[in-house]
């Protein structure tokens, strides 16, 4: 539409009185309109950020859910053929139990705790999910639940090939209903550790060390596999499927972007979404460093390239960066990942020395790298002190180790936690499950 100079003059001649009239009307009315418009835009922005926050929880949530598949495949690949069905069964049931226990008890025990305190409500099932404040409350529950399930997954790998199914599941009920939520309440629930300045961004201690301590207690009380340490030497029992184990680690790596990335807990602003992006990058690079350190280490130390150690290295790097994936620069993130991996590599033969039989290396990867990653935050995040981190590591370590040990001992002395020697030789697929993993192949 062409505007001629004369047309413009004519329009302004007509507009002028109107403007004058509006000035006469009231300056307040125009201000109201502006205020209304601002409020409407604000509400839209709030709605948008609510949507994006919820989206982050949902996407991060199902990525972490997928880590359950990663654990299942990793463990299935690292156990012998005669125990594969049992490993699959353990993984699918622990995931199911974790969800139920977290709904029934866990979430409110974890987040219902009063600020700075030690214990939340011990039995308060979830009610209906309301709309929530900055995000849909159901999405928050979902996101938190998958972290609880991850903790449970860690325990099943270490104890493979000789544990009984039902006692294991009973332990998981307590781990997911009580132990993990109590530990979580102390930090993410704003309990006493958070008040002390302890910082664990996505769960190096809360999830990974917790699972690791529970696994360690179990491994000691359960005992090593028959024949593993016989004859005064270490007798390896190689896993049945390197492809499955590798697939498992890649799946875990993928899921970790949700694990760390969505722990930003918000995605409705430019600051938040850039933080999520930064976390993705640091998470990835820490894993990269973990793998490289692992293969260099095994080549130099053992003169071979052990694929299972390379896989462990990736995971150790991921666990280590999990406590603080946002503040480091990429080189620092790689340093954290690389050191976490190195510590894990050193721990593997150390466990053998103490005759602690960890089938998949979950203790080096989740416990040791988890502790390291948590302490390292004091050096990568200037707002966090070493004493606060140490306090958290020690308090949570003591709590989880002691409660797990008590649980394992009670189970051992009552219903027994270990299959018989014949059953162990025949394989748990035969003795506990009754379904062979590969029925068309003759088992050893």
């Amino acid at each position: 539409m062409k505007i001629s100079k004369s047309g413009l003059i004519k329009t302004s001649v007509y507009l002028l009185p109107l403007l004058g009239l509006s000035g006469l009307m009231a300056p307040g009315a125009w201000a109201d309109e502006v205020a209304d418009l601002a409020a409407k835009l604000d509400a839209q922005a709030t709605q948008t950020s609510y949507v994006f926050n919820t989206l982050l929880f949902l996407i991060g949530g199902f990525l972490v859910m997928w880590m359950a598949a990663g654990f299942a495949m990793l463990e299935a690949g690292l156990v012998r053929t005669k125990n594969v069905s049992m490993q699959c069964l353990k993984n699918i049931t622990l995931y199911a139990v974790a969800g139920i226990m977290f709904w029934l008890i866990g979430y409110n025990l974890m987040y219902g705790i009063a600020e700075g305190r030690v214990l939340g409500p011990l039995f308060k099932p979830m009610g209906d999910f309301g709309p929530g404040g900055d995000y849909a409350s159901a999405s928050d529950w979902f996101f938190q639940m998958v972290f609880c399930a991850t903790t449970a997954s860690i325990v099943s790998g270490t104890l493979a090939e000789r544990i009984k199914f039902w006692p294991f599941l009973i332990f998981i009920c307590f781990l997911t209903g009580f132990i993990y939520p109590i530990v979580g309440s102390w930090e993410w629930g704003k309990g006493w550790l958070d008040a002390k300045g302890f910082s664990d961004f996505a769960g190096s201690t809360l999830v990974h060390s917790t699972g690791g301590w529970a696994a360690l207690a179990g491994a000691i009380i359960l005992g090593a596999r028959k024949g593993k340490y016989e004859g005064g030497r270490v007798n390896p029992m190689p896993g049945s499927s390197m492809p499955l184990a590798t697939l498992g680690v890649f799946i875990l790596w993928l899921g970790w972007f949700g694990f760390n990335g969505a722990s930003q807990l918000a995605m409705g602003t430019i600051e938040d979404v850039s933080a999520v992006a930064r976390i993705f990058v640091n998470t990835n690079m820490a894993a990269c460093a973990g793998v490289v350190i692992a293969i260099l280490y095994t080549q130099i130390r053992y003169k071979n390239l052990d694929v299972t150690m390379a896989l462990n290295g990736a995971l150790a790097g991921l666990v280590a960066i999990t406590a603080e994936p946002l503040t480091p620069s990429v080189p620092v993130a790689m340093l954290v990942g690389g050191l976490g991996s190195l510590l894990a590599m050193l721990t593997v033969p150390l466990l053998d020395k103490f005759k602690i039989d960890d089938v998949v290396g979950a203790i080096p990867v989740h416990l040791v790298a988890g502790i390291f990653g948590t302490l390292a935050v004091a050096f990568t995040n200037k707002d966090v002190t070493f004493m606060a981190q140490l306090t958290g590591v020690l308090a949570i370590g003591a709590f989880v180790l002691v409660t797990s040990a008590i649980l394992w001992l009670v189970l051992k002395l009552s219903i027994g936690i270990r299959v018989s020697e014949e059953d162990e030789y025949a394989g748990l697929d035969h003795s506990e499950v009754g379904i062979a993993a590969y029925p068309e192949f003759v088992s050893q």
Partner: protein
Amino acid sequence: MKKIEAIIKPFKLDEVKEALQGIGITGMTVVEAKGFGRQKGHTEMYRGAEYVVDFLPKLKIEIVIASDQLEAAIEAIKTTANTGKIGDGKIFVTDVEQAIRIRTGETGTNAI
């Protein structure tokens, strides 16, 4: 009738099979096996722990042939399965009492 059991290195199977087919032996059974003779095992490393692998993968070829084909068959297997290195395998010969073709009921050399 004679039975030949030949333990060979697995990668030699196609060569041996073709050589046998070349002299008119058309049937055989192959079994996966593990074994060792004077060929030492080797040490491997799994997660920082050393272990010795004594048994090495082998294939056992079983053929039942007319006695007049025996020399040719042994020669065929010996030449094609040979690498000159330890672990090439062994050939054993035994007598066969009876042979029956299941589909038709033929016996003796008509069955092989």
